């Protein structure tokens, strides 16, 4: 029992490899820190930022109301766009050629024209189609209304943003569905599962893992480009700010206020994205998320 002795702890320590020195890293960290300190110093001391004015407008009712409009446009726009995008993606992956053609024509048109133009077109829909009616084509009309009374700045904005966004989401959802191995569908079918059950329980949960990161990108993009609705006089966050500084000439402070709110919302979205990704990543070994802040201390250590 005593023939082989295990290595003594002291000997083990001597055996450990000493990591290579990395002096350039230290220089890089010092330079980056200096630049950051310089920027921070300028932020604090440069009076042109107008921090008091920023404070004055941060919770201004007009800004908050604009923020509310932006949030509604983003949430409702994204919800409608997801529904249409999912439908288009399923059509694009269908075996039926005509359905694929419709989906690709939709994507071609809405990706191919500026969202600004689409918004103006929707807002001026009455010029093209004076009245909208629901009924049997070439048959009796069940319901009818004047286009001008239906197309308010709100409906035009929601229509324009969501129909445009749907085209991008269609492509994202399509790529997500295609990323799921065919064997998954075959295994589900072999177990007697229906096509809808297979899609809902087997394919979609796995596709979402691929869909969520770029879809979150789209949500953040929509949050900011929803500001184009100012062309149809809907005061969202940026336009509300512009209305203020057009009168007071406090351009920079008010824009800083606007940016602070965009950053707050994007931070919340990023956090939500991270949570969602972790939930969907269950069962898959590697899931890196961009909100992995648990080890922020290690970033400061040069030899991590």
């Amino acid at each position, binding site marked *: 029992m005593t023939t082989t002795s295990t290595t003594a702890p002291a000997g083990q320590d001597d055996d450990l490899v000493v990591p290579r020195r990395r002096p350039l890293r230290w220089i890089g960290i010092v330079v980056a820190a200096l630049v950051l300190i310089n920027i921070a110093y300028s932020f604090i001391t440069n009076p042109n930022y107008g921090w008091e004015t920023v404070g004055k407008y941060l919770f201004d009712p007009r800004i908050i109301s604009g923020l509310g409009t932006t949030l509604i446009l983003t949430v409702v726009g994204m919800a409608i766009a997801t529904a249409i995008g999912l439908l288009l993606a399923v059509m694009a992956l269908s075996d039926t050629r005509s359905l694929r053609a419709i989906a690709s024509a939709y994507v071609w048109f809405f990706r191919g024209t500026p969202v600004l133009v689409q918004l103006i077109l929707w807002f001026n829909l009455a010029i093209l189609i004076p009245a909208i009616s629901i009924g049997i084509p070439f048959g009796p009309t069940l319901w009818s209304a004047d286009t001008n009374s239906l197309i308010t700045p709100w409906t035009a904005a929601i229509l324009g943003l969501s129909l445009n966004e749907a085209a991008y989401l269609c492509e994202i959802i399509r790529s997500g569905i295609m990323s799921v191995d065919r064997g998954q569908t075959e295994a589900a*079918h072999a177990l007697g*599962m*229906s096509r809808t059950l297979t899609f809902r329980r087997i394919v979609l949960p796995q596709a979402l893992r691929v869909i969520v990161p770029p879809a979150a990108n789209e949500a953040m993009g929509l949050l900011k480009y929803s500001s184009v609705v100012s062309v149809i006089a809907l005061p969202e966050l940026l336009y509300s700010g512009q209305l203020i500084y057009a009168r007071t000439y406090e351009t920079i402070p008010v824009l800083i206020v606007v940016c602070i709110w965009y950053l707050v919302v994007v931070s919340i979205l990023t956090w939500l994205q991270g949570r969602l990704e972790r939930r969907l990543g269950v*069962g*898959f070994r590697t899931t890196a998320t961009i909100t992995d802040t648990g080890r922020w201390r290690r970033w400061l250590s040069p030899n991590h």
Partner: protein
Amino acid sequence: MAIAEPLVKLTGIRKRFGRNEVLHGVDLEVDRGEVLCLIGASGSGKSTLLRCINHLESPDAGRVIVGGEHIGYHERHGRRHEMPERLVRAQRAGIGMVFQHFNLFPHLTVLQNITEAPQRVLGMNASEANATAHDLLSRVGLADKASAFPKSLSGGQQQRVAIARGLAMRPQLMLFDEPTSALDPELVGEVLDVMRGLAADGMTMIVVTHEMGFAREVANQVAFMHQGRIVEQGPPSQVLGSPTHERTRGFLSKVL
């Protein structure tokens, strides 16, 4: 006493992919409780034939009859009409299938992989489905892995879960499509052991395989396929021991 009908009866199965006909009229019968091993070179049509049995591939001609039922088609006025998907699904539910690459659902736990179809296809309640799943997991020797995710299991363990998943539907027939071909050599044995146990319990099995030892030991029948046809069929001692067809001899001299 009447002679029992075979459980599986294939007649004149033809299948083409584009211009390439991969099955040129295959006939095959498997009795209840029998194990049939399909052997042959890759591209000989073994897997396609297997997939025709549960209608994952729809044959262009010929009949697939399992348990007296035509799979995938109604016979009406002497013509065959493709069935509505709903009916094909019900037929598939009674035929278990095990794939070369396991095809477990990675986002579900081992237990959920097994209970998903019994609950949602057969309408089994959760406690019954769970009890069945636990029974099957101990039968394949994985009682302790119920809450694990497939990615954390070895290939052999994943394939055993896949077998349990198929058995959970209480099938009358199990199809195996090269169940050990994607496994490391040291993991092949544990999967074959489970299959041996199944055969001993009287499960009817059709196994596409390259494991000649398994075929020799477990199969009641071995069918050798070459270029979309079954060229030789019989008990393993005959097909593997003293093959009469030149193609069979050529194939066996390469794999044995």
